[in-house]
C-alpha cells in the first residue's frame, strides 16, 4: 500500500534524527525495564516464600531472640509438620563491603524446609558431618571464588570472636528467583561456642521456621502459637514467611517508591524527546501536508501518516530496548554480586516496556498529527518560504 511506504520513507528522511530518537527510546525503555527488575528483585524473597511456611519471632522485634525451649511447644501445635530455626549471624568477611546474609541454622531440619536449595547428596552429608561445615549458594561461591573444602573466616560482630568455617556444600537454586547468595552453617557450632564464652546468650534462637501440613491452617496455627506464649517472658509474633519477607521490603518502601517514581520519570523524559522529534518533522513538512491536501487527500490520511511515523519510530526503540534488557540485566546482576538475588526480567516487565514505547509513540505523535490534519492549504503552502 501507498501509506506504509510513505511512512517508512518519511521516517528515513532524517536518518540521523530518527536514529538518535530510536536510541533515546531504547535507552529509556531499557532503564525502565531494569528499574522494574530491581524492584521485583526486592520482592523476590517474598515471592519465593513457601505458602506452607510460617516464621515465629520475638514480638518486640527481630533483635530479640527466643528461647530454644519454645521449639517443643511449637512442634506440638496441631498442623505443624516440622520446625527448624536460625540465627542471624551478622559478621564481617574480610571487609564490611562483602555483604551477604549469614545464618546459623539447625542443619538437620533446615535444608528439609528449603527444597529449592539443590544440594548434592554427598555434599549434604559432608555438611551434616562437619560441625564447622558451611553451605553457600552458587552465586556467592562464584563471587568470592570459593571451592569445596576451603576454609572461610568471619569476624563476629553480634557474636564476638574469630570464626572459621569449612565450605562443605554449594547449592543451586531450583527456581530462577531462589536466593543463591546465602551462607549457612551449624547453629550447634554457634551455640557450643556461646556456652563456653557467653553462657547467658546460649540456647537462644533468632526465628523459628515451621512447615505446615496444609497451607490453609496458617492463620489458625499462627494464632495458637502466639496465644501459647502470651504473657510469657518471650512473647511471639507468627506470620507467614511471605508476610515476614514483605516486612523487610516495607522497611525500605520509601526507597522502592522512589525507584518507581524515577522509572516513570524516564518515560516522561523520552516522551519529551520523542514529541520534540515529531514536532520538528511535522513543522518542516507543513507545505507537503498542504500539497497533499490540495491534491485531495483527506485529513485522516495525513493524521495516519504522522501518527504512523511516530509509532514506527517508537516501536523500533521499544523493541531494541526490550531486547537489550536481558543481557543488561545479566551484566547488572553479575556486577552487583549478591546484593540482589533472583534478578530476573519478568514477562510482565517486557510487555510493559513495549506498551510504554507504543504509548510514547502515540502521545508524541498526537499534537503534530492534529496539526497536520487541521492545516489550511493556503497557510501551509505559504510557509514554503
Amino acid at each position, binding site marked *: 500500500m501507498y501509506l506504509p511506504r510513505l511512512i517508512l520513507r518519511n521516517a528515513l528522511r532524517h536518518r540521523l534524527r530518527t536514529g538518535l530518537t530510536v536510541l533515546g527510546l531504547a535507552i529509556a525503555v531499557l532503564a525502565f525495564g531494569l528499574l522494574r527488575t530491581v524492584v521485583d528483585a526486592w520482592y523476590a524473597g517474598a515471592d519465593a516464600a513457601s505458602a506452607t511456611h510460617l516464621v515465629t519471632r520475638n514480638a*518486640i522485634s527481630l*533483635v*530479640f531472640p527466643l528461647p530454644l525451649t519454645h521449639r517443643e511447644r511449637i512442634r506440638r501445635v496441631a498442623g505443624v509438620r516440622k520446625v527448624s530455626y536460625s540465627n542471624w549471624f*551478622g559478621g564481617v568477611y574480610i571487609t564490611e563491603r562483602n555483604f551477604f546474609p549469614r545464618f546459623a541454622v539447625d542443619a538437620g531440619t533446615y535444608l528439609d524446609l528449603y527444597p529449592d536449595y539443590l544440594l548434592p547428596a554427598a555434599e549434604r552429608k559432608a555438611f551434616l558431618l562437619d560441625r564447622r561445615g558451611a553451605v553457600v549458594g552458587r552465586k556467592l561461591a562464584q563471587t568470592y571464588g570459593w571451592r569445596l573444602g576451603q576454609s572461610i573466616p568471619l*569476624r563476629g560482630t553480634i557474636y564476638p570472636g574469630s570464626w572459621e568455617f569449612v565450605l562443605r556444600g554449594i547449592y543451586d537454586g531450583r527456581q530462577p528467583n531462589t536466593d543463591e547468595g546465602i551462607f549457612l552453617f551449624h547453629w550447634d557450632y554457634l551455640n557450643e561456642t556461646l556456652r563456653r564464652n557467653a553462657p547467658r546468650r546460649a540456647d537462644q534462637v533468632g526465628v523459628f521456621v515451621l512447615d505446615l501440613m496444609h497451607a490453609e491452617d496458617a492463620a489458625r496455627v499462627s494464632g495458637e502459637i502466639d496465644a501459647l506464649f502470651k504473657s510469657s517472658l518471650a512473647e511471639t509474633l507468627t506470620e507467614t514467611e511471605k508476610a515476614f519477607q514483605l*516486612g523487610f521490603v516495607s522497611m525500605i518502601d520509601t526507597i522502592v517508591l522512589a525507584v518507581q517514581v524515577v522509572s516513570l520519570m524516564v518515560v516522561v523524559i523520552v516522551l519529551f*524527546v520523542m514529541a*520534540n522529534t515529531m*514536532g520538528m518533522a511535522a513543522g518542516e513538512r507543513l507545505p507537503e501536508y498542504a500539497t497533499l491536501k490540495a491534491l485531495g487527500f483527506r485529513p485522516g490520511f495525513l493524521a495516519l501518516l504522522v501518527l504512523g511515523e511516530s509509532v514506527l519510530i517508537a516501536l523500533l526503540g521499544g523493541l531494541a530496548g526490550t531486547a537489550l534488557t536481558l543481557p543488561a540485566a545479566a551484566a547488572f546482576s553479575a556486577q552487583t554480586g549478591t546484593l540482589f538475588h533472583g534478578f530476573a526480567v519478568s514477562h510482565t516487565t517486557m510487555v510493559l516496556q513495549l506498551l510504554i514505547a507504543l504509548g510514547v509513540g502515540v502521545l508524541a505523535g498526537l499534537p503534530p498529527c492534529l496539526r497536520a490534519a487541521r492545516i489550511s492549504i493556503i497557510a501551509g503552502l505559504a510557509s514554503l518560504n
Partner: protein
Amino acid sequence: MALPLTYIARNLVARRLTTALTAGGMALVVYVFAVMLMLDEGLHQALVQTGAADNALVTRRSSETEIQSAVSRQDAAVIASQPEVALGPDGRRLASGEVVVLISLPRQGSGKPANVVIRGVSPDAFLIRRGVRVVHGRIFRAGSAEILAGAAVARQFAGTALGAHLRFAQREWTVVGELDAHGSAFDSEIWGDAQQLMQAFRRSAYSAVVVKLVAEPRLESLRARLESDPRLTVEARRESEYYEGQSRLLSRFILILGTTISLVFSAGAIIGAMVTMYSAVAKRTAEIGTLRALGFRRREILGAFVGESALLGFVGGAFGLLAASAMQSLSFSTMNFQSFAEISFGFVLSPRIALLSLAFGVLMGLLGGTLPALHAARLDIVASLRKV
C-alpha cells in the same frame, strides 16, 4: 570576537516548543540528580549532627552498632571513672550507660511495621547531648515507665503522641514528652530511663557508654587507656565518627543508585539535545553560510552553537534545580541497612549541590551540542548559501 549572547539566546526563544521540550527533559534529569545528592546530604547532616566531636562512645570491641554491643555495669563504672571524662555541674563524671534496642511499631497511615530505636539513658544524657531538648511535656521521672518520643517518631508512628500509651516488653509505657534533636538521628528514637528499660527487657548489661570528654583531643588517651585495660574488651570511638560510619552503607547505596540512574537518564536527555541542535543547524544552514560570508570564522560558528546548547542545558538545569529545591520541605524516612533502624532525614540543598546540578545541566547541553556544532562549523560556505 564571538557571536553575541543575544543571538544565541534569541534562537532558543524563536524555537520555543523545541527548546521547552528539550530543556524539560534535561530539567527532569537534573531534578533526579539534585534530589539524589540532596538526599545524601540530608542523611549525612542527620547522622553527622547526631554525634558530638567531644563525646566518646564506648562499645564492646568489634561491634558495628550499639545494638550489637554489650557493656557490663562494672565495665561501665570503670569507663566512667577515667580522667578523660569531663565533670558535670554536680562534680560527678558525665557518663551515660545506655541500653539500645529495636522495637517494631506500626507506621502512621500504612500501619506497616518498622523498627524504632528505644534508648534507655541516664539523667546525664541531656548534659552530654546538648542538642537534644524536651520540647513538649516533660522529661521522664527516674524509676517510672515513662518515655519521650523523638519528633520524627511522633510524626511517623501511630500512638506515639504526647500522653499516649505504648505496650512493649510486657509493660505499659506513657509518652510524657517529645524530643527535639534538630533533625538528627535522635529524632527517630524513643528515650526512657535506662534502669527501667533494662529491667523490662531483662538486660543485665548496657549496650554502650557515652561520655563527655574533657577536651576533644583527649579521645586518643582515653582509647589507649581503655584498650590496654585488661579488665575490659571495649573500644572507644568519637561519637561523631560513629554516626558518620552508620550512614556509610545507605549513603553508598543512594549515591550508586542515583548516579547510575542520572547517567542513564542523561544519555536520553543528551540525545534530545542532539536532535534539537542538529535540526537547528539544518534549519539555519543559510544563516550559517551568511555569517561565514560576512567573515565569521568556523570557530565562531562552533562557539555560537555550542553556546546555544550549553545555554539550553543551563536553562534545563535551573528548572530542574528549582523543582528539586521545592523538596526541601519534605522528609524521607527509611530503614538504615546498617542499624536496621528507621531513620528520618530531610532533603538538604547545599551550594555545592546547586552548583553541581547546574554544571551537570550545562555538561549535558555541551555533550549534546558539540557534534551538531562541529557539523555547523564544517559546512561549506557556498553550499550552505545555496540552501536558501
